[in-house]
């Protein structure tokens, strides 16, 4: 079997990947800019409506990232869609587990600093690792 039978990707795949990367990158840049620089550019009174608005603006690019993910899931084929959905389910499960662990720890008197970030980072990390693992297992 020559190399071309087992390697490479179709033009549709490359287009879908490029579009996904661009859409995610745009969202990530938008998030970083609004999250890191907006409070510096628009200093506000803590607790004021303006402060709430500035604090919530970074959610806009995050919503865009979610939309980009949904668009990607709709673009890919049936196997890839199944793998993405499976990894999302496992990532969601991990986030819920971490969330419950934080709650149980707090009832035991253990204070977890910034628990929301543990839930977010844990869920995202498990999702990211799972995507790689299930993709590898499907094609090894």
């Amino acid at each position: 079997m020559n190399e071309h039978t087992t390697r490479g990707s179709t033009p549709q795949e490359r287009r879908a990947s490029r579009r996904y990367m661009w859409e995610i990158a745009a969202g990530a840049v938008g998030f970083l800019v609004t999250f890191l620089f907006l409070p510096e550019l628009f200093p506000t009174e803590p607790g004021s409506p303006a402060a709430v608005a500035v604090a919530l603006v970074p959610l806009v690019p995050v919503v865009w990232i979610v939309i980009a993910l949904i668009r990607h899931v709709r673009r890919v084929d049936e196997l890839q869609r199944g793998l993405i959905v499976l990894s999302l389910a496992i990532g969601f499960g991990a986030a819920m587990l971490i969330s419950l662990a934080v709650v149980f720890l707090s009832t035991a008197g253990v204070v977890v600093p910034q628990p929301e970030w543990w839930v977010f980072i844990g869920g995202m990390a498990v999702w990211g690792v799972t995507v790689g693992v299930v993709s590898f297992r499907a094609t090894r």
Partner: protein
Amino acid sequence: MKNDVRALRTERGWTQVQFAEALGVSRQTVNALETGRYDPSLPLAFRVSALLSRPIEEIFFPGEHDAPPSGGRR
């Protein structure tokens, strides 16, 4: 489920990429099909059948672990 996709594809001189493009799926999916790691949906099986000009039952057939018509009771 077992299948003869790889043999039928290579018989025609198509690469996985060419075959995937014609089917409208990724090469990863063709590879998973050929190695028996993925059972296609019925619509995709029909597309494979049309592309290879063979009836579905000549391309895909049950493996020893697939449930018999009894619903799994042996």
